[in-house]
Structures are given as structure tokens and as C-alpha cells.
């Protein structure tokens, strides 16, 4: 059992720990889930690259003992696209945050899904800009308090999983920091799926979000995640009225939310065909 032997520890740069995240932060849970999923997949430290953007989530790459790339704000997916196309044999994982992926990097997120490059994108969604001290993100709920929404947010959040599906991601899943094993399983399934895989992990930020929104302790935030996350099969069994009531109560489904029915050609495989066609053409 990986859990008991802590065999995942070899995937961390021990000399770079402890991490800089606040006590009670959920990012460590998601980071550990990623390396456990890598172990489960049998990917090695030599054939796996971790790419991140800017923000709290994106500092994870520095702690992980692989080839790692801490890019510019919002740009992790384009960098990862370049790596994967240049070296298709490498496994490429993107770690991003809700500001990084859904605000400044929103366009890259959409087109990453559309292009269907074989990447595993893990969104650490803490509903806030943590690194800059608690400003509202595109995932901050309506009415949520942040330093830039002192009277409550009037900007509507959106569902990144719906966006990913609509834009063409071939695997879309969600989990939370409360559901540790489930999160690992979702990420591992995303890694196993060829094409653009998107996994939203809801993680707690007690320092910048919880304290301003009546959940100052990490335990309270985890409890909120437990009480509001509904496993996908149970969610699907809800009747219309019940589902409406759940949504109004901020409940949400977790699990595999979308998987392309027939395996679609990922970008790299499709580009191999381009090369074949080009080389068949006389100059």
C-alpha cells in the first residue's frame, strides 16, 4: 500500500521542503494526490514533466522531483503544449490555480481543451488569489468576501468543468481536498486518458478565503467540502426539483463529469498524420 509505505515521498525534493503554503492550506493534499497518481500510473521521474503557472498552486512544481517548469502567470498550458509536441514521449502534467487558469490563462485553457493535446491539467481551485493576499478570482462565489470585494462579490463565477467539456476536453473530473483517495483516483484516470484531461480539485484556503467568509478554520472548510460535494452517481439520481435545491444550496457533483465516448485522436497523433501527408507530397 502506497499510503502506508509513504513510497510517494521519493517524488518530492526533500531539500526544498517545507513548502511555503499556510498552515491548513489544501494545496499539499492536491500535490500529494498528483504524485500518488503518477506512482499509480507507473510514470517515472525521468519521463514526466510538471508545468505550472503563477500563484500559490503553481509553487508546487518546485517541490516535485521531476523536470519542472514554473512559467509566467496564466501561460502554463501553452508552455506544456510546446513540451508535449516537441517530446511526445514525455508525460506532461500542468498544475494551475483558479486565477491562473480561469482568468489570465482562460483563453489558453479553452484552446488547450479544443486542441486536445495529451496533457493532464490539475486545477487547484481555492476560489481566491492567495499569493497576492486574498483578491477575488473568477471562482469566488457571488457574495463572497475578498480584499477586492469588501461588500461581497457581484461577479458571477463559472464552472470550469462545464467550460472544459464545452471546449472539447476529452476527460473532465472534479474532486475535493476532503476526498483524498477520490482525488487521487480522478487524477490517475485523467493521466490514463489520452488527450486533454482536466481535473478540478477544490482546495481550502483558510487564510485568504475562509477567514473572510465565516470559515476561519481549515477543518470547517473541509467539512463544507464534505457536506457540499455529491458523488456523481448520486447526483445523477436526483430528480429535477432536488437537483435545483442542491444547486441553490451550493452543492456540486464530484467524479468523472465527462469522458469522450469514442477515443478522439489527440493532437500529437493527429499531427503525426500531418507529417505523413506532408512527406508524401512532392516538394
Amino acid at each position: 500500500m502506497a499510503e502506508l509505505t509513504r513510497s510517494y515521498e521519493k517524488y518530492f525534493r526533500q531539500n526544498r521542503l517545507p513548502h511555503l503554503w499556510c498552515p491548513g492550506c489544501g494545496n499539499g493534499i492536491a500535490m500529494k494526490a498528483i504524485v500518488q497518481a503518477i506512482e499509480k500510473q507507473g510514470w517515472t521521474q525521468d519521463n514526466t514533466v510538471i508545468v505550472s503557472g503563477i500563484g500559490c498552486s503553481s509553487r508546487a512544481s518546485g517541490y516535485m522531483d521531476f523536470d519542472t517548469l514554473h512559467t509566467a502567470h496564466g501561460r502554463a498550458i501553452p508552455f506544456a503544449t510546446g513540451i508535449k509536441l516537441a517530446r511526445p514521449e514525455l508525460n506532461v502534467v500542468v498544475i494551475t490555480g483558479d486565477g491562473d487558469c480561469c482568468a489570465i490563462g482562460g483563453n489558453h485553457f479553452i484552446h488547450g481543451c479544443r486542441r486536445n493535446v495529451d496533457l493532464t491539467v490539475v486545477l487547484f481551485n481555492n476560489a481566491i488569489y492567495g499569493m497576492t493576499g486574498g483578491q477575488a478570482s473568477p471562482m469566488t462565489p457571488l457574495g463572497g468576501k475578498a480584499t477586492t470585494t469588501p461588500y461581497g462579490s457581484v461577479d458571477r463565477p463559472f464552472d470550469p468543468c462545464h467550460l472544459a467539456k464545452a471546449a472539447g476536453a476529452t476527460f473532465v473530473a472534479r474532486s475535493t481536498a476532503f476526498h483524498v483517495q477520490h482525488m487521487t483516483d480522478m487524477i490517475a484516470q485523467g493521466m490514463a486518458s489520452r488527450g486533454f484531461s482536466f481535473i478540478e480539485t477544490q482546495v481550502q484556503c483558510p487564510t485568504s478565503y475562509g477567514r473572510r467568509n465565516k470559515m476561519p478554520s481549515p477543518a470547517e472548510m473541509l467539512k463544507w467540502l464534505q457536506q457540499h460535494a455529491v458523488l456523481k452517481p448520486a447526483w445523477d439520481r436526483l430528480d429535477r426539483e432536488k437537483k435545483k435545491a442542491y444547486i441553490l444550496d451550493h452543492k456540486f457533483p464530484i467524479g468523472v463529469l465527462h469522458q469522450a465516448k469514442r477515443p478522439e485522436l489527440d493532437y500529437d497523433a493527429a499531427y503525426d498524420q500531418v507529417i505523413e501527408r506532408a512527406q508524401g507530397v512532392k516538394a
Partner: protein
Amino acid sequence: MREARLMQGNEACAEGAIAAGVDFFAGYPITPSTEIAEMMAKLLPKQGGKFVQMEDEIAAMGAILGASLAGSKVMDATSGPGFSLKQELIGYAVCAEIPCVLVDVQRVGPSTGQPTAPSQGDLMQVRWGTHGDHPMIALSPWSVRETYDATIMAVNYAERFRTPVILLMDEMVGHLRENVTLPEPGEIEIYPRRKPKKTRAEGYEPFEPDTDLVPNVADFGEGYHIHVTGLIHDDTGFPVGSAQVTESSIRRLHEKIMRASDEIVHTESYFMEDAEYAVVSFGGTARTAYEAVKNMREQGLSVGLLRLLTVWPFADKVIAELAEKVKGILVAELNYGQMVHEVRRAAGGKCAVELCGKYNMKSFEPVEIEAEIEKMVGDVEKGGRA
């Protein structure tokens, strides 16, 4: 010997990139650079390389940097508005020391400006567009054949110094068609990707500078487990908040290029042996300046042309020597006046330095430059504007 071919400047750029070993190109369409992307889309897959059209200019820059870190030789091409969008990631490539070539086929600005009209208004943006202190290498070819050679040179410099190199083209040369004979592949010198000289067990540090101050950063997927960041980092590649590391890394980024500046700065002189006056120019404008100088020589005026192929680092020494020799320098550039300030600085008051600028969508006519030469000569001889 290859046969001569009628070729466009932008086409020569794409062919030069392939000859230099570029195997990955990401781009976004923008006039007047688009033909480069179109050519790369056609040529790269034939060589087994890859072309990807990204969702915007920032993404294209990100994709080439990722591919470069994974071992590819990379290029991207754009024009003014796209060049503005790329600035943050140009700085990323400087700081993280990622080899890449970015072509800017200049058009009239600011903003959307005049998309199809020629200009040389990005000269200063090339140097200072990204934030913070940083060095820059930029080459500005004046002919189709030189575009081919300068593209190869740009790729080689990017690899040798692990830095972004800008190929500063203009619409005149980009869309110019000339008959050119390209060199045989064996005649082309290629600078290979730098490789680590130590193993991990021997204490390899990816950003440890070699004797030329350039680090031998391992490519991804080679088992070195390196970390790359745009934060200021030490030799290990990991960010540090130290004043000493910040100072020494910013200094090294500059010095690795400045110590080689005599090799990087390429200039050409025409009619300069006994010249009392000089025109300094670059890119497409230098073609007209050449015509003007030739005409003035035929009229008996002692004037020559100094053409800068390398626009950054600036040809300080060459300009300083020139200023000692001549009575006046006219800087011909297709903008409101950018290079003229650099020439004045480098000339250090040793001779008159005047601007011959233009920014009305049209390239220069030789007579316009001739008139400005005459004016400068008149003023200097009268002791007016020195």
C-alpha cells in the same frame, strides 16, 4: 552550387530557419509577417518538425519556450501588436535562459497603426520592451539573401548564449523579392544545443555558468530533474530572495553577451575610405541610403554609408571610431527618430549627428536622403549645427 531562386524576404527567413535546424514553430497570423508562418506550416512537417498555430501571440511564445526546453530549436514570427503581447515572455526567456528566435516584421505603429505599411519603429521596443534590466541581441537584414543568413545567425546566437534573439525585419525586406542563390547545407555552420558537462552525481547544477558565462542547461527528459523559473534563481535553478544572487545573476545575464559583443556586432561600410560624412542606417532603409550615397559620390561629395546588421547590442565602438573620422553623421531610419539617439550617445559629441526620419507609410526615396545629406553638409560647413 544551387540554382538561383526568386524568393521573398519572409520566405528566406523560413528557409533560413529550417537550414539552421529549427524544428518547432508556433505562431499567430499577423501582417506583414504571416508568410513566415505559412511557409513554416508547409516546410516543417516535411522535415518531421512541427508547426502549431496558437490562440494568440502570447501562447505562441509560450509554446516555443516549452518546446525549446524540451530540446527543439524554435522560432516564432510576428509584427508590432503581436510583438507587444510577447514582451513578458521575452523577459521570461532572458531570465530562464531559454534559446529562441523571434522575428518582428515591423509595420507602422502605434497600436494597429498601418498594418501593411513599412516602418522601423520597433527598434527601441526590441531593446527595452520587456520589463527589468536585460541584454538583447537583434539583427536587421537588408536583403533577401541576408535575411536567410541572419536567420541562421540568430538561431546560432540563441543557442550559444541561451537567450532570445530578435530578427528585426521590416515590411520592405519581408516583402521584397530578389533572385538569390542559397548555400549548400554543408556550407552552413550550426551551433548545437549546449549539453550538461557533469552528471547529477558529479553535482550538476543546471544554471552554473560555463567559462563563457552561459549555463549548460539540460533539456527536459534527460533525467536531470531540473527546475526552470522566471524568478531570480541561483545556479541550482531554484528561486532565492538574496540580494547577492539577484545582483550577480542580472550582471551575468548582461556580461555573457557584452563580453562577446565584438563578435556579435556586425556592420558593413560602403564608400567609407576617405569619407568626410557618413550615413548610418539599417534594414530596408539602408538600401535607399546606399543608393543616395552612391549618387552623392558620383556628384563628388565625400560621403559613405555605415550599415548596422546587428542593431543590438549597439555598435558603440564602431560609431565612436566613425565620429572621430567624419564631420557629420546622418542617421536614416523609417521612424520619428530612435537610432539617432543611440548614435549621438556613442558619438559622444565628436561630430554632428542628424536625423533623417520618415513616418508616412512610405519608404524613403534616394532624393530625400540626398537632400538631408546636403543639408547636413551645408550646416556643418557653415559651422551651424555641430
